[in-house]
């Protein structure tokens, strides 16, 4: 583990990222936006009710909104951070030199991915003090927050992996970025749409709802849907009812996104260098 974290690419990327003013201004504006939302919400709620206090239900609603904002942030920023990881090295003509070092392809890909994920984690963790206001007003358990953060981590890992994979196999950063955003839109919007179409067609064709594992699969891999079930446990019953598949969607989500991560990293490692034998 120590050896993995002493990865030269990881150390260099972190060093470069935190020397850039962009990173700090990014965190600053993100936190300002979060603060405006949270304090604005508290002010509006207390003014509207006229009671002058903030109830646990409202605190829970704020938690849900904050979590969706962070999910949006992860879905929006991760492709931007990872889709240029390798292709920008190629464009800057630094990749060839890097590839002639004795670092393995896995070390390079791992360094690139973890440095991007590390920055995202910093963004998420930097927002924790704002999240802590939720605990101040009650309505949310720390365990729930922990699960949400695990979900964030898995999601950023998978999207990050996809970004790195596209960055490796596509020469131009802009094209790799479009491909990553396209894939992300597929997972967040198209899968939900397919789920709705399949369940809708099922109910219209049979009159009653028939079992539809495909619809369940598409619902399972949608991060927005999983987020909903994590925020309000028990809300996944509508998916069980509409698809007649009694499997918690977080299981499908976890398996699918772990597979996606492993597959993307595998492809990136394989395609980074020319296909010579025993090119580790």
């Amino acid at each position, binding site marked *: 583990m120590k050896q993995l974290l002493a990865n030269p690419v990881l150390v260099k990327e972190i060093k470069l990222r935190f020397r850039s003013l962009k990173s700090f201004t990014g965190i600053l504006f993100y936190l300002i936006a979060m603060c405006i939302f949270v304090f604005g919400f508290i002010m509006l709620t207390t003014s509207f009710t006229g009671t002058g206090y903030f109830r646990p239900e409202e605190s829970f609603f704020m938690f849900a909104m904050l979590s969706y904002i962070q999910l949006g942030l992860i879905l929006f920023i991760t492709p931007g951070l990872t889709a240029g990881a390798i292709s920008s090295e190629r464009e800057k003509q630094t990749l060839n030199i890097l590839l002639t070092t004795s670092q393995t392809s896995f070390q390079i890909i791992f360094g690139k991915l973890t440095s991007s994920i590390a920055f995202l984690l910093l963004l998420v963790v930097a927002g924790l003090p704002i999240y802590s206001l939720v605990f101040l007003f009650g309505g949310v358990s720390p365990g729930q927050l922990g699960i949400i953060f695990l979900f964030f981590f898995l999601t950023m890992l998978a999207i990050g992996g996809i970004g790195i994979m596209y960055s490796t196999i596509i020469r131009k950063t802009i094209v790799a970025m479009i491909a990553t955003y396209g894939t992300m839109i597929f997972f967040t919007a198209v899968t939900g749409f397919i789920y709705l179409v399949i369940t809708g067609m099922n109910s219209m064709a049979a009159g009653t709802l028939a079992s539809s594992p495909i619809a369940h699969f598409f619902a399972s891999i949608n991060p927005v849907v999983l987020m909903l079930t994590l925020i309000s446990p028990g809300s996944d019953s509508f998916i069980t009812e509409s698809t007649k598949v009694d499997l918690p969607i977080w299981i499908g989500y976890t398996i699918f996104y772990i597979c996606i991560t492993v597959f993307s990293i595998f492809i990136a490692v394989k395609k980074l260098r*020319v296909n010579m034998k025993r090119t580790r």
Partner: protein
Amino acid sequence: MIEIKGLTKKYGSFYALNDLNLTLEEGTVFGFVGANGAGKSTTFSILATLLQPTSGDAFVNGKSVKNDAHEVRKQIGYMPDFFGVYDQLKANEYLDFYGASYGISEKEREVLIPQLLELVNLSHKRYDYVDLLSRGMKQRLCLARSLIHDPKVLILDEPASGLDPRARVEMRDILRQLKGMGKTILISSHILPELAEMCDEIGVIDGGRLIAHGSVADIQAQLAGEKQITVKLKGLLENAVQFFEEDPFVSKVELEVDKNSITFHYRGSEEDQINLLRKALDHSLKIISFSETETDLEDVFMEITKGVK
């Protein structure tokens, strides 16, 4: 140290390299000469494990670039013709990053980096950002980078390209020092006379084929056995032109009136050359000097690649 066997690289029907064979002993400084697109960079890219050959193989210290690329990378220091640097990274950090990439421990790097910066005359730029260095300094820093893991073989693809005359001289001095260290160096350049100065062997590549290989003297001797002779005279230039044109070993006689001299190609032996001079004196030509003109490598290159497709 380096053995290239039947190396071929094809892009569709185009041969970037065509059956290249070459063997270099340890400590050799080999100059690769060729026009743009001749196949120099392709050869170097294959040796640096960045490109897979269509057929054939190359061996660095007995390790195949196809089958043992990871081991080959440990043996070579590669400097490409075009390269970029990372923004916001200082010169010592730049070397530190690549040192770590070669698995050199932090303690060793702390000792190595000042030595390398000293070698390339960049000690005073140690804490400067790499992207703000001049082109020549970046080239020297890249050379230091390629030396960080003490490779046995250096592959330098046009290391002096785009440099001003002063930077070229500095680069040449560093390369001489490396030659003195016993490194096997493969270097390509368009500055051919510079290669002649520092290389033990020269290879001329054209259209993906190695068309000449040997020592600088050997290559010059391949110029169809011809030498160029310049004769400086006092008066009677037209007579002299006629006299030299009549000699069976003389060709391409050129008269330079303003310099009072005649230049011609001569393919006779040394004895024939002595006889020619004797006959010219007997012919009452007032010869001030009679000398062979040194053929530089550019002439050799132009002559060898003439008509090669």
